[in-house]
């Protein structure tokens, strides 16, 4: 009985899967401080590697092509920063100045609503009892944000130094290191190892490229939409919407919060502006779901929506925003590894091959 349980392909696949996940988790914990630059570098590697290969085919050496791609990346980043940063900084400071007005409008709106309720139905709600803790908390958050902001600046500087270095070495050496590692597999697992690697790499590469294109399109559409309706800080809001779009299902809902708050804080309050802000996000989502997703990231991830939502909640709870962004690629990678292991083990045990 025990022997049959141990030798069952599902048990063996689960054991191997657990072992692989444990090793990956251990490495993730060990490299925790460097995890973010490593993840960003891998994402950039997925996007830039084809360009480096193309340069190599034109006769450049591996180092020269990697360095050329890196220089292009740095130049592009510098260009985008120099063009966008002044606008972003101006919009951020305008937003900062506008936030107290947004809170005041919201409190006034709530007070007017409570008066209306008291007059029409006799229901007496003390709105200030609800709003004051929120305002106090917002003040606290504002103070914390200043300290967090300076920490963020240090992290961002480290990121800006580490990411290009990691990306350069990934483009130059990743294939060699990967080959050396996979060639260390025993003869009977060699092909299976390569199959798993390629399925995972293909899926992740498609997903990363797709989601980057998708976020870019969303940012442009939302920025254009907010610019047209005349909402303040359209570039900043577009960027935030693009970044939040990295989180499936939940991201678009979160992306609505800030524009709606800003529209509510618009003095004088114009309800059409609130509707237009929601409309822009919904229209962008429509474009995303009808045009972008089917052509850009369809088939990149084949997971049930319920698994996706549960995964996002669990990963978000454990690792915050980064966890929510990484939930889908991590779950789909685990899914591929487990399925391929099970398939590989089943074929070696003919008694189970049809089970």
């Amino acid at each position, binding site marked *: 009985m025990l022997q049959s349980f141990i030798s069952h392909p599902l048990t063996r696949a689960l054991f191997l899967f657990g072992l692989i996940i444990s090793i990956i988790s251990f490495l993730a914990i060990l490299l925790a401080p460097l995890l973010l630059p490593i993840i960003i570098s891998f994402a950039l590697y997925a996007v830039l590697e084809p360009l480096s290969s193309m340069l190599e085919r034109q006769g450049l050496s591996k180092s020269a092509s990697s360095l050329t791609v890196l220089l292009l990346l740095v130049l592009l980043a510098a260009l985008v920063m120099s063009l966008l940063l002044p606008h972003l900084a101006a919009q951020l400071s305008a937003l900062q100045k506008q936030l107290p007005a947004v809170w005041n409008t919201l409190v006034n709106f709530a007070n007017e609503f409570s008066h209306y309720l008291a007059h029409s139905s006799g229901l007496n709600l003390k709105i200030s009892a609800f709003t004051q803790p929120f305002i106090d908390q917002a003040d606290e958050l504002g103070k914390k944000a200043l300290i967090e902001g300076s920490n963020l600046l240090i992290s961002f500087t480290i990121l800006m130094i580490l990411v290009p270095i990691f990306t350069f070495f990934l483009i130059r050496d990743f294939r060699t290191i990967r080959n050396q590692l996979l060639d260390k597999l025993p*003869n009977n697992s060699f092909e299976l190892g390569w199959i798993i690697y390629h399925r995972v790499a293909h899926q992740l590469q498609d997903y990363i490229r797709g989601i980057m294109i998708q976020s870019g399109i969303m940012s442009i559409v939302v920025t254009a939409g907010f610019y047209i309706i005349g909402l303040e800080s359209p570039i900043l809001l577009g960027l935030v919407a693009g970044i939040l779009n990295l989180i499936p299902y939940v991201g678009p809902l979160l992306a609505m919060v800030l524009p709606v708050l800003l529209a509510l804080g618009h003095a004088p309050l114009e309800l059409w502006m609130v509707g237009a802000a929601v409309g822009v996000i919904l229209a962008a989502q429509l474009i995303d779901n009808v045009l972008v997703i089917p052509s850009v990231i369809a088939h990149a991830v084949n997971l049930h929506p319920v698994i996706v939502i549960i995964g996002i909640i669990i990963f978000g709870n454990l690792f915050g925003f980064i966890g929510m962004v990484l939930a889908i690629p991590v779950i789909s990678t685990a899914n591929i590894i487990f399925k*391929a292991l099970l398939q590989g083990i089943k074929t070696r045990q003919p008694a189970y091959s049809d089970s």
Partner: protein
Amino acid sequence: MANLKHPLWQNLFRPQGDRITEVTAMWMDTPLFENISRHKCRELVKNMHPRQYKKDEKIFNSGDIGTSVVLIRQGEVEIRAGEKLLAELRQGDFFGEVALIIDEPRTADAVAAEDAELIFFLRSDLEEWVQRSPRDGAQFMLNMSKVLAARLRHTNILMSLQAN
């Protein structure tokens, strides 16, 4: 594919040099690389995977998921269907090429008949090469279809002989 040339003659006329040059020459002798330049073949060989097998070690089993064509650089390999010996392959021969095209399980067992060094050419490397050099990729696919057609014809002849 069974190689009709004597190994001694093969070794005498094969260009000597480093491993990559030698493996390139071996692939160029196969029908898979007909009308493809030595330079292109050499570029591919650099990314291939040499592996050592002991005598009687299984290379793959029928039903395993396969992803590569295998060239014998040294040693001998037996292809079996259960207890039945289907082919004895030697240095310069290749096998398992169907796995380069379709994602289906292997249809026979391969066992090292003596200590062997095998060169694995993975489907992922082929796919990348086809994208990079579509003209050479098309030529390789044409060569592959000729090999598979020859195999099919050979099997049909064997089956009709058995039926008669």
